């Protein structure tokens, strides 16, 4: 079997809000000093889902693909260290400044080029832009069924069984292969690679494909192909500081708070 994991490298989402700055002229996030670029956490969980299927099924190849800058090699290497077999970096200036639809177009073209893929695993959303559409659009582009926000995934008899998170619980569904599944944090933690695996990953192959390698016209991807135009990116204003209860003891503070809530007719 051949499984694909889509991975994205993002600024560490644990960045404290105080360090988060935007360049209003460029509508871009200013990279904060000391903030690492990391594998989007949901993509690590998607990789974990693929790895568990590989372990259960045996004789399975996992290819990790990532669209991004040269630095996205690190995100690919991390999934390789977890246990994936090969990596593909999709890198071309023509891919820059697109929208989720152009990104999905690039990823779809790469999966088509890989050719013999049985299932694609994506995180439920990238933990920077939070769109949550790449996996669904890849499924559309490939003409495959899709199930999203999975907390459990297993493969058997040419079918993928997904436990999907819904508003009031979970639903178990079967999709015929090939299929796309997006994986949520409810799935569980991704594994942490051992030092030996990290060293092995350094020797695994990462191929780079450009727009021309994928048969994509530069006009249909990146900024040129985007249908969503970012007009403005800004930091919403916060109302300010909380009124802190000043009593000497927790009991006094609690009394004060209740009095305030009563005065404001909240309680």
């Amino acid at each position, binding site marked *: 079997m051949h499984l694909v994991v889509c991975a994205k490298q993002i600024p560490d989402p644990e960045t404290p*809000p105080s360090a*988060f700055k935007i360049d209003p002229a460029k509508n871009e996030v200013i990279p904060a000093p000391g903030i690492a670029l990391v594998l989007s956490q949901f993509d690590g969980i998607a990789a974990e889902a693929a790895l568990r299927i590989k372990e259960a099924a045996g004789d399975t190849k996992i290819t990790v693909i990532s669209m991004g800058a040269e630095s996205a090699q690190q995100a690919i290497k991390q999934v390789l260290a977890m246990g994936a077999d090969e990596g593909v970096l999709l890198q071309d200036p023509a891919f820059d400044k697109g929208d989720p639809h152009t990104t999905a177009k690039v990823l779809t073209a790469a999966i088509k080029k890989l050719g013999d893929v049985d299932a694609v695993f994506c995180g439920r959303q990238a933990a920077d832009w939070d*769109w949550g*559409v790449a996996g*669904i659009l890849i499924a559309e582009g490939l003409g495959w069924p899709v199930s999203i926000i999975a907390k459990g995934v297993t493969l058997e008899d040419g079918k993928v069984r997904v436990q999907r998170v819904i508003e009031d619980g979970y639903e178990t569904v079967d999709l015929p292969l090939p299929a796309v599944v997006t994986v949520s944090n409810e799935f569980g933690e991704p594994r942490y690679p051992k030092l030996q695996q990290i060293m092995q990953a350094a020797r695994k192959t990462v191929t780079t494909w450009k727009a021309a390698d994928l048969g994509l016209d530069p006009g249909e991807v990146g900024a040129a192909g985007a249908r969503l135009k970012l007009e403005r990116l*800004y930091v919403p204003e916060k109302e300010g500081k909380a009124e802190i209860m000043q009593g000497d003891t927790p009991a006094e503070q609690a009394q004060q708070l209740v009095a305030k*809530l009563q005065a404001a007719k909240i309680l």
Partner: protein
Amino acid sequence: MARNVLVVGEFSEGEPSTTTHELLGAASRLSDGGAVGVTLLGSGASGAAAATFPAGAGKAFTNDDAEYDVFRSDQWLIAVLAAVEQSSPDVILIAQSTAGRELAPRLAFRLDTAAAMDCTMVQDEGGALQVTRPAYGGNALATYSFASSPAVATVRAKSQDPIAPNAGATGESVALPGVGESRTTVIGREKVEAEGLQIQDAAVVVSGGRGLGSPEGFELVEALAAAIGKDKAAVGASRAACDLGWYPPSQQVGLTGKVVTPDLYIAVAISGASQHMAGCSGSKTIIAINKDSEANIFKSARFGIVGDYKQVLPPLIEAIKAAK
């Protein structure tokens, strides 16, 4: 500029959902004289249609087939595409729900256009539609325009106002053609819900975070909610607390959990990470209880107590009981 707007509605027990009312409100404001349509799919759809006309719909596209009662995006997609065919919308509004999350991108793909997800603002800007959505876990807001038509947008619950009900308004019901095949087979469904009041419906939500230090910490959080009233207050949790297995994921408040907008939100030992605030910042009043006076939660809170929740909650519970 007059626009045709199509809303993908959802309903239960014959009543359009609150979010459907909100979407119809937004659609009415955007339509500016254009037509507002709504799709309703599943058992009782044609009955639910009557309630959408006073809420702003002029035409309801319905199919009562029970096949639609379980959401399968490929089936819904075919039905909604049929409604699009018949109503030529400029804008399609969908809830950011289990159904909307999966349906909107597929619909956009089929219509060769784009979908903007989880929008909190949809507005006319000089004749063009603009939508605004949170990004970077709520640290930023991003405003987009569309270079393709129709514009497809999913809209966050509670972000839009319904219109004042237009009593006696009637509209036209159109039956959508028969249900299509699905490649998704539903095997089973497991309801995982807290008993009693749901966090989305509660007037007061008391949430606990990683700072509780242990799952036992939730006993005090639950006691505080109980003191406020079982019929008023529900208990939530941060993602960190849910990921640690301290509280059920069904109670998770935040970007990847539930979005709540109670009158009062009490955050106990929650630092206030952006992704958590994305789920509760619409609350009318936020109270923060945290031992770290620098915690981000105090920036969004109206009232705060700086202290260890183990010391603060017992007297707070007593004071609330005494105030009743």
